[in-house]
């Protein structure tokens, strides 16, 4: 089933990719499926293959195996460094 998700990128990922967010249409079952779709673009998108990548679904931290639903907001970012 084709669904729509909004993907956001932060910090070093945002800078490397040159965009803050993107609307995607595709057949995504999980957050990782969204990531794999982006990774296929190659080039700068390789940044999303970093082991320490963190992700969120609808503004809550999640694992890459988290299921996604139509209209979800998915975010990818490097390890957080606040405090």
């Amino acid at each position: 089933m084709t669904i729509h998700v909004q993907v956001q990128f932060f910090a070093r990922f945002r800078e490397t990719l040159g965009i803050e967010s993107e609307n995607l249409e595709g057949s995504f079952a999980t957050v990782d499926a969204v990531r794999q779709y982006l990774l296929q673009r190659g080039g700068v998108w390789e940044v999303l293959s970093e082991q320490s990548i963190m992700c969120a679904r609808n503004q809550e931290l999640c694992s890459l195996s988290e299921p996604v639903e139509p209209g979800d907001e998915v975010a990818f970012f490097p390890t957080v460094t606040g405090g």
Partner: protein
Amino acid sequence: MAIRVQATAFDPGAEVNAMHDANVGVGAVVSFVGYVRDFNDGREVSGMFLEHYPGMTEKALGKIVDEAQQRWPLLKVEVLHRVGALEPAEPIVFVGVASAHRQAAFEACDFVMDYLKTRAPFWKKETTSEGPRWVEGRESDHKAADRWK
């Protein structure tokens, strides 16, 4: 509980004093203040920019405070975090915890900082003597957070 994410400076002393809040049941207030240093990982640091994830930041901090309140009997918790441009010596973060007795306040303050460091969506970018750089996450922060599992 109060969560504030703001681009303007704050006074840590005033924040500590406000923790008592005229509540005569408060017997202990523990606070943590994090500051911008002028040196990090071998380079001089002349400034910092703090990026965050608006919306998620407040939710993540609220969740951390909720969890602290479930674990310890707390009377008040306050988390204040700066975003945007900061200079060395400026306070970045304030965590204040009030309780009847000191042990809960000490532990809860430590817990909130450990979880904030590893779960709240903030990212530091330093202006250094050799150009700008993103601060990398530290393994020691994750080990510290794992203590509370």
